[in-house]
């Protein structure tokens, strides 16, 4: 991938993505180490994602496959965060702002790929996850992991171009790949795309994940709430008005007798 290809015709950065081809990965772990260096992560490189490992390489069924934030196009974590500490940049990177976060951990609970991690041992922890090297990618550079990958198993570039590339690879060598691009439709589509030589569920990837963008599940309810307030308010207010009026008349029948309209003087008749 050339640097030019990460820009659209107008010069604006195109939504970036990663293509991870598990059939090319040799499990050297260069990407995980480069990521830690890029983000200045201390602590040990854990076997699974953690506050000190934004990405890991895991072996399943004789194949190495990376795990990292998928950078959903409609990210669940961004939709659930009450204080917008998680945002999706125009370039497609889903980034986190520790200064805004209040630590409700809804993002950790809600992410369909179980990516965000928490630093439980800290008194006031931060959420940890891959940020698609937004400082590099928003300037048109590659991510640290794709930059160092000796096998070209991880490449970065505009998502559209990567999808094309993935399709071409499957078409040219159908025996090598499972005919599926993980991330094309998962959770409504993700910026990270994965190709595998063994069935995805065996490769340790959650294939049960919904194809619909998950924020829709809650938005369907939330968007109705203004109507609940409006109709509920009118209903409660009206009912209270009717009931309380009747109760008042019951208590003071003389009030009710005052009310009936007196027959209006017939029209045209002058007093």
């Amino acid at each position: 991938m050339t640097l030019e290809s990460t820009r659209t015709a107008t010069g604006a950065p195109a939504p970036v993505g990663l293509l991870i081809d598990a059939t090319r990965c040799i499990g050297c772990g260069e990407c995980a180490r480069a990521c830690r260096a890029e983000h200045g992560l201390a602590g040990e490189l854990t076997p699974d994602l953690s506050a000190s490992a934004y990405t890991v390489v895991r072996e399943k069924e004789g194949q190495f496959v990376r795990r990292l934030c998928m950078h959903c196009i409609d990210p669940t974590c961004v939709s659930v965060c009450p204080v917008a500490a998680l945002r999706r940049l125009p370039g497609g990177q889903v980034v986190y702002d520790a200064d805004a976060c209040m630590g409700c951990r809804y993002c950790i609970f809600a992410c369909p790929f179980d990516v965000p991690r928490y630093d439980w041992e800290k008194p006031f922890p931060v959420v940890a996850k891959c940020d698609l090297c937004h400082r590099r990618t928003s300037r048109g550079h590659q991510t640290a992991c794709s930059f160092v990958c000796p096998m070209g198993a991880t490449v970065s570039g505009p998502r559209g171009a990567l999808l094309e590339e993935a399709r071409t690879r499957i078409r040219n060598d159908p025996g090598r790949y499972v005919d599926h691009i993980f991330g094309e439709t998962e959770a409504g589509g993700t910026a990270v795309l994965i190709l595998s030589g063994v069935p995805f569920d065996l490769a340790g990837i959650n294939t049960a994940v919904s194809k619909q963008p998950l924020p829709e599940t809650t938005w369907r309810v939330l968007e109705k709430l203004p109507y609940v307030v409006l109709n509920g308010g009118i209903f409660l207010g009206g009912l209270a008005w009717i009931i309380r009026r009747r109760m008042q008349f019951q208590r003071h029948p003389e009030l009710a007798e005052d009310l009936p309209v007196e027959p209006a003087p017939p029209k045209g008749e002058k007093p």
Partner: protein
Amino acid sequence: MSPRSHRNLGTPLPLVPTPPPLILSLSKDASGRAGFLRLPRWNLTLPSPWKLVVGIVLAWGCWVTARRFWLGLGAVTHLSDRMPWGLWVGFDVLCGVALAAGGFSVMAMVHLFGFERLRPIVPATVLTAFLGYVLVSVGLLYDLGRPYNMWHVFIMHNPRSVMFEVAWCVILYLSVLAIEFSALVMERFRWTRALEMLGRITVPLVIAGALLSTLHQSSLGTLFLIVPGKLYTLWYSPYLPLMFFFSALAVGFAMVIFESYLSAFAFGRSLERGIIRELAHILLVTVLFYLGIKLQDLFARGALGALFVPRMETWCFWLEVALLAVPAAMLLDERLRADEHATFLSATLVVLGVIVNRLNVSIVGTYAYSGASYMPSFEELSVSVFLTTLGVLAFGFAVRFLGIFEGHDNGDGPTPALQKPAEAA
């Protein structure tokens, strides 16, 4: 809410004579009334074993509090990345909000729908709701990883987030409750002019409270709609918001019964049989309605089969349903409904049932997916017990200080047999 508004409308019913006081009691003057503007002073009638238990709970709670804020969540909880929410979300927040729901529903019934018979319990329910929501907010401080950023919801907006909506509704509702609670303080000090002004906005205030409660009670269910693959099928339902709302309604009424009954013991006052019976009817209807929605939902989703799969979730679900179905069956019997002890028992079961439901949805329901074995740590449990104890103590204090149950003394007065010996003397 005029000072004389909550008159004793039910028939005073003598209960068990001279129950031991559980709550720190405050002295009263000879007429049995807290003196005007006289600060209550502690009365040492509390039996010492209770005092000892309360003391230990408070001291240990302070110690755990210090540890939690000094060392962080990892040091005191069993939470993990697989189970990021535990007892503090499930009990302190979800149950706390649900159990305090009596505030808005009783207020709406009295002030909007004219259930005048319930008027005498309005002060106690307002007090419970207010204290309940204050406790929920304090509980949140423990649970949030960065509690000092809590105020960010005021300046950083994300209208797509259910949590954002819940936060705003709870804040606004807490303000409504604070105003309603201030009426109790005004009554205590007989600030008639302020009370009159407040009386004029009562109806809009109660409507606002009811709407805000409807929103956030249901939204606590909506929170879990975002995890379709993670929450076990018995609980994951598009109707979660409705279910949370109606179970909150039911448990709100159950709590009012529960609390009236216990207060009758603790404060040596008479129990209004009429009110309890009225509430028993309402409780029965709401519980039946909730159970109806639950059944209908399982049927509509074709999940009835999951009721008979032998696994841990199934038992937990049945436990929750049984804790609601048994009291409903009890209350269907007219004789039991007329018996305040049986009504109290069924209300207690409903409270337990809704607590189990909230823990099921927030903890048990995600066990299988997460593959983690979360059990709350002793420290987590002790914080929940600590906060609940603080709530009960605050309730006891406020009841004495604000003279919450004094409306009854104005009327026929408590049955003499019910007066505690210390006070009768």
